[in-house]
């Protein structure tokens, strides 16, 4: 992080000024994920002036980017060198930024096989509620010097500080890929994807929707070829397949037009959930989208019984918080952790947990 940068100085000044008045701030980049999480009040802190790729070295598999940089710009730069963000972050609009990507902590179809946002964060600079510019982690793959604060930022929704810059692990795009489709009921699909994941097959993504299971293979040419022969199914046209996976990643698929949209994160092998509504399943069964007007409590109980939690992802329901509650000891640690970074709770107050 270059400390003498005017855009950074402006953000520091804004935080100092807000702190002196104890006035809350709402951090935003492209605001493409404004729908996500609980409502926030506060003066806008726009991260977009903090833009630009600080360094990119393809042979180091690392890119360092300032938080306000559009995600689209980063992906284009990586694509030029045959690389990508392997966790396929969703793009809910054209203006999404890298800072927002990390803060939201959301990953796309490849999550179950490639890891999530946090698994690819190597380092970060942030501005805490005391107006201090702090750097954690770095630009190297292995680093156990101190607590891994940079990865903690993934999914923190801006509640720990203003993300200023992040270093991300990038990977080569797979040499080959192919998509297959199978006519299959939900229970069979869940069983098949989990059994296949236990075999040395180049699985990259899966989805089940309306009686069909889609599977994406990615890896070495030879591995993809032999997996196609082993698995059978109907081979999709490459362009059609790419459009399908992109429509899941960015939630442009017709399924996602329904409201309210719940995201259930559960143990992958959980049998079909007995909840009324329409569902679409990703991540080998570990991410289950549900459009349902069932009471929040029933949906959350079902997710908890399946080893996970449920998020009201889109569409508000009166009296229902976006995120599931956590156990009392965790709630206490979360609260104290937020206070340790942001003593006055200036940043995105209420977004993760509704304010009292």
């Amino acid at each position, binding site marked *: 992080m270059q400390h003498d940068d005017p855009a950074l100085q402006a953000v520091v000044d804004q935080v100092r000024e807000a702190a002196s008045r104890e006035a809350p701030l709402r951090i935003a980049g492209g605001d493409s994920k404004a729908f996500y999480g609980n409502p926030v009040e506060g003066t806008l802190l726009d991260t977009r002036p903090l833009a630009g790729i600080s360094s990119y070295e393809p042979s180091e598999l690392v890119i360092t980017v300032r938080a306000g940089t559009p995600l689209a710009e980063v992906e284009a730069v990586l694509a030029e060198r045959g690389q990508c963000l392997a966790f396929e972050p969703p793009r809910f609009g054209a203006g999404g930024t890298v800072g927002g990507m990390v803060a939201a902590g959301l990953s796309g179809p490849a999550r179950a096989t490639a890891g999530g946002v946090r698994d690819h964060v190597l380092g970060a600079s942030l501005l805490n509620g*005391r107006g201090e510019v702090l750097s954690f982690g770095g630009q*190297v793959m292995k680093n156990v010097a101190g607590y891994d604060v940079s990865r903690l930022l*993934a999914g923190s929704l801006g509640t720990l500080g203003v993300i200023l810059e992040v270093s991300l692990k990038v990977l080569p795009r797979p040499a080959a890929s192919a998509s297959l489709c199978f006519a299959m009921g939900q229970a069979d699909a869940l069983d098949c994807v989990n059994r296949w994941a236990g075999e040395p097959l180049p699985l990259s993504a899966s989805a089940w929707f309306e009686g069909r299971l889609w599977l994406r293979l990615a890896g070495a040419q030879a591995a993809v070829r032999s997996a196609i022969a082993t698995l059978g199914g109907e081979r999709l046209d490459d362009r059609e397949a790419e459009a399908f996976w992109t429509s899941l990643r960015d939630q442009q698929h017709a399924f996602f037009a329904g409201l309210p949209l719940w995201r259930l994160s559960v143990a992958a092998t959980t049998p079909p959930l007995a909840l009324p509504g329409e569902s679409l399943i990703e991540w080998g069964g570990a991410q289950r989208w549900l459009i349902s007007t069932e009471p929040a409590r029933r949906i959350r109980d079902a997710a908890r019984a399946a080893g996970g939690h449920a998020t009201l992802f889109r569409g508000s329901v009166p009296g229902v918080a976006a995120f*599931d509650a956590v156990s009392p000891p965790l*709630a206490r640690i979360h609260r104290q952790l937020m206070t340790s970074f942001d003593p006055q709770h200036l940043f995105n107050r209420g977004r993760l947990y509704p304010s009292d």
Partner: protein
Amino acid sequence: MNQLADTVVSHEPQPDTTSRHVRQAEVVARLQQLLPARSLLWTPEDTTPYECDGLTAYRERPLLVALPETEAEVAAVLKACHALGVPVVARGAGTGLSGGALPHRLGVTLSLAKFNKILKLDKLSRTAVVQCGVRNLAISEAAAPLGLYYAPDPSSQIACTIGGNVAENSGGVHCLKYGLTLHNVLKVKGFTVEGEPVEFGADALDAAGLDLLTVVVGSEGLLAVTTEVTVKLVPKPRLARCIMASFADVRHAGDAVAAIIGAGIIPAGLEMMDKPMTAAVEDFVHAGYDLDAAAILLCESDGTPEEVAEEIGRMEAVLMGAGATRLEVSADEAQRLRFWSGRKNAFPASGRISPDYMCMDSTIPRKRLADILIAIAAMERKYGLRCCNVFHAGDGNLHPLILFDANDPDQLHRCELFGADILETSVRLGGTVTGEHGVGVEKLNSMCVQFSPEEREQMLSLKRAFDPHELLNPGKLVPTLHRCAEYGRMHVKKGLLPFADLPRF
């Protein structure tokens, strides 16, 4: 082996012996009400085996060692210690290399050795639920009949425990492709400092709220006590083959590493040994290494036979293009293991050629491999000591082994200066002071160099969010501001004080 033996180092003010005895009697009396007699050790004969971990230079006897057998006993010990204000240091197999399990003179060492059961292995979900004291390799052995294994493989894997791996975020030779402990763990169950049960992570791929697993993994026992871990298992590759490549110049070898990654290949393992290291290990394992090479690269591919054939072909082309003087591809599993035998025995082989050695563990950007090797060669002259080098080249993690004789105080002193110089040079090259062995007590001073006072204070305050009275493994991982001030320099990061003129509030 004889790693940096027999120098007792202590940084805490020592209370007088009488008050220590009084405290000990008090803690023993309290814990005797909670645990059976066989689970408590406090006489010097009994506690001496616990006085250090794999970093034998630092030794301290705890007030008492508790060996609970159930989670209820763990909770009871923690509650009692919390009430008495006694520090608690959790311990697994004691193989750590940075003193993370060094006892606290006025604390209880909580040995979790009896938590050694694999509770569940599930083929369909590809997970294992294991108690914290299960050995790393035991998980893979148990999962083998299912065609699965646990990927992180630190070289101590026959002895080290999964609880210790969680504490250190351990790596291994395959982590470039398969990730670190954090990437292979779904859930950690344990207890808060107050003795309350707590779970980090979930059976799902994420949990609600802040992702505390990211900081708990690698927290060196400072945030919570781990008793049970749910790990991911991955399918065993059908085949693995390894290329051994020789280079006439370390710079060529460093460039070859960058060229492989640049070609879009992520090898299953990518390791480097320099000439002195190769000579030492060849003498030990007789694997047929090229003794004329300035550096040797081991480059592994795994997957289906077709996949491996394709990748080995691409790797060979890149290595030849980068100036390899000799290439050999393992023809069968026996030969592959022979290629690896020297790399895996680098530490004991060093123990054979020198009375003592000190192992460093910094990480640098891959492109600086040749630069650090050249810098280390200059340091050998400066400090008058020899150094052998092995690297996890694929991820830039260095293990320079400084050879010395601890019986010579001057050599020991020069060795410590040499080590600190390597770490500080690594930070200057854009790296970090520890890639996988942890900070423990060993690298506390180096943390003063890598982080600003505000960054360290933020980390200390993160600890207090989990452990307000700082009773879990206190004095490790993050140095106090006072200690860094004593370390003797005002650290100025990147030549600039961040916002020197900025009022702090």
